[in-house]
């Protein structure tokens, strides 16, 4: 199977969005103002109150709402139609289409989608894992949590990418490992996104 850069890009973002949705569902519904402020600060949102934020995340069509993010997941799956196996495509599509409304059901759906993608070709799984790890790292940096274990895991993933010929990422990754802050991380991501587009 030949994996196109564009396919890899969509798989990567599929990984990112599924983790993003899963993490969001772990917070929902917010019950305490402190939690809400921490969340809003991490994601550079206005300081909503508990009720407003819950409503925006669960019910609305705002860019950061669950509904919008599930829509983006579906969009990415559609772009992968010619690549995913018939069964995976149908099952993931069905899962997203019939996703429940409460955060617990949504988390289960996300887990099921990830399970199906883990059964796909190893190249597909590599980029899916990359997306998952990037999103987890991004979230942990935002909440100032410990990232050392995740950095080790992601090193392994990046080494596999380098074996494919993505060696240009190496210096950016080293720069981030040396100075594991958001700024270096986003420079790394910028390079990664360019490589999806212009790899020749």
């Amino acid at each position, binding site marked *: 199977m030949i994996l*196109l*850069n564009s396919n890899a890009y969509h798989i990567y973002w599929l990984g990112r969005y599924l983790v993003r949705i899963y993490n969001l569902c772990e917070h929902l519904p917010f019950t305490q103002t402190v939690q809400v402020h921490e969340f809003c600060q991490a994601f550079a949102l206005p300081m909503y109150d508990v009720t407003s934020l819950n409503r925006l995340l669960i019910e609305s069509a705002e860019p950061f709402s669950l509904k919008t993010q599930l829509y983006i997941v579906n969009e990415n799956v559609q772009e992968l139609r010619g690549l995913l196996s018939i069964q995976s495509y*149908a099952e993931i599509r069905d899962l997203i289409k019939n996703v429940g409304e409460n955060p617990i059901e949504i988390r289960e759906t996300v887990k099921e989608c990830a399970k199906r993608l883990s059964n796909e070709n190893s190249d597909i799984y590599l980029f899916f894992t990359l997306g998952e790890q990037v999103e987890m790292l991004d979230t942990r940096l935002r909440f100032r949590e410990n990232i050392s274990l995740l950095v080790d895991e992601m090193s392994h993933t990046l080494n596999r990418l380098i074996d494919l010929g993505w060696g240009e990422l190496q210096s950016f990754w080293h720069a981030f490992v040396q100075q594991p802050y958001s700024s270096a991380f986003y420079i790394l991501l910028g390079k990664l996104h360019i490589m999806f587009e212009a790899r020749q």
Partner: protein
Amino acid sequence: MAEHEENVWNASDHYIQEQRSHVLLNNTSLSSEKLQTVNLFEQLKSEFFNEMLDDTTFSEESCKKIEQWLSRRTLLELTELNLRAKQHFLYHGITFNVYGDQEGVERTIPFDLIPRVIEKKQWEKIQAGCVQRVKALNQFLYDIYNEQEILKTGLIPAYQVMTHEAYQPLMYKHQIHGKIYSQVSGIDIIRDNQGEFFVLEDNLRTPSGVSYMLESRKISHQLMPDLCQANNLLGIENYPQLLKQTLAANALVDHEPMIVVLTPGRYNSAFYEHAFLAREMDVPLVSSRDLFVQEGNVYIKTIRGKQKVDVIYRRVDDAFLDPLAFRPDSTLGVPGLMACYLQGNVVIANAPGTGVADDKSIYPYVDSMIQFYLNEQPILKNVPTYQCRKKDELDYVLSHLDQLVVKEAQGSGGYGMLIGPQASEQEIDSFKLKLKQSPEAYIAQPTLKLSVAPTLTKEGVAERHIDLRPFVLSSPDRIDIVPGGLTRVAMKQGSLVVNSSQGGGIKDTWIVEALRS
């Protein structure tokens, strides 16, 4: 199925006045009873050629076998089987979008459980006729882009070809491997009241529908495993492999060629089919952003670096293939693609410029092409066609508009046509003006009583009009055609429209030697 679909709008007077060809099972008590046995199909007898009853190549016993299978089930059971087919389509996303549909609703193509059956010897004639036709059309294409011998004889007016919108000057004197311009062709076939097969249209650009042909067979196996197995159907499942072999055979390289399927993207109504074929052939499905040209070659961008492309099975129209050669505003094509193609560094299937041969204004000449290039008589006839660009034929058409079907020479999807017997006086007068203004843009055909096949409806089994689209695969050394093709059926009572965007459905097509149950 948006590409070059043809509405079968040839209506008969009888059809307009009275439709009496279905079994009415309105009585709700019958919904739990078995369908009427023995004479289930007999009751469908009407003035139309019934594919199941009137084909003398079948033994009467053959027809009874399907009747018996149906009769052993209630209408509810059969309806539920059809519903399972719909659910299968929905679950797998085998849907299509209708252009211009504001809601952007995805629709499934209605599938009818009752197969269309063609006896093997009949099929052999259709097969031979399609192969002959595609051979002649490919030779015609080679000729008009090279020595133009047929034009010199005057058999086909040179003006009509050279000024045709689809004629690609870039292709003039470009040598194509094996002289194959249309590697994938779809021939639309109908049957008249005498059971005679006619070719309604040739599709040489980007014919679609093969994925539905394959899905119909898959569903038939799921819903009627016993009947399918017992009848030893001629297989069609190898189509994707045959297509891949055909594309590979057209390549210009000695090693295993890199083949890609070029799609306009997922908003194209046939995207499902593009994805299906790419996956079944195990080749990349690409859009314009995945391809680039470098030093005269076409490459795809993969995670392991660029890879040279040898064959592009394109499902993008000519005009959008290359913004440097055709429409400059196209974002669906690849800048520089035509330069690579003309240098012989990549194969495009089907070749640019094939559209001139599948146009309705060229269609009337195909019989002549067969005689000219192959020195043979056509095995499959054309529907008689009047070319409005010819004065005497225009005069005839103008004075018989209420009896004819008039179509745009470059139209598709049933738009821009007039169905004389169904048109009002005002519509006819309005169309007369159009014809007088641009006669070269229209052709006309007499109405035909199209054949029908038993089809499951809410009320029971009823007759519905059908057509057939076999798919022909051409490479320099051989021509392949999988048995059958796609049968399209007009699902609505009284309708002759098989177009999927207007409610047309599909049936599985069985080629058998003798039916068994």
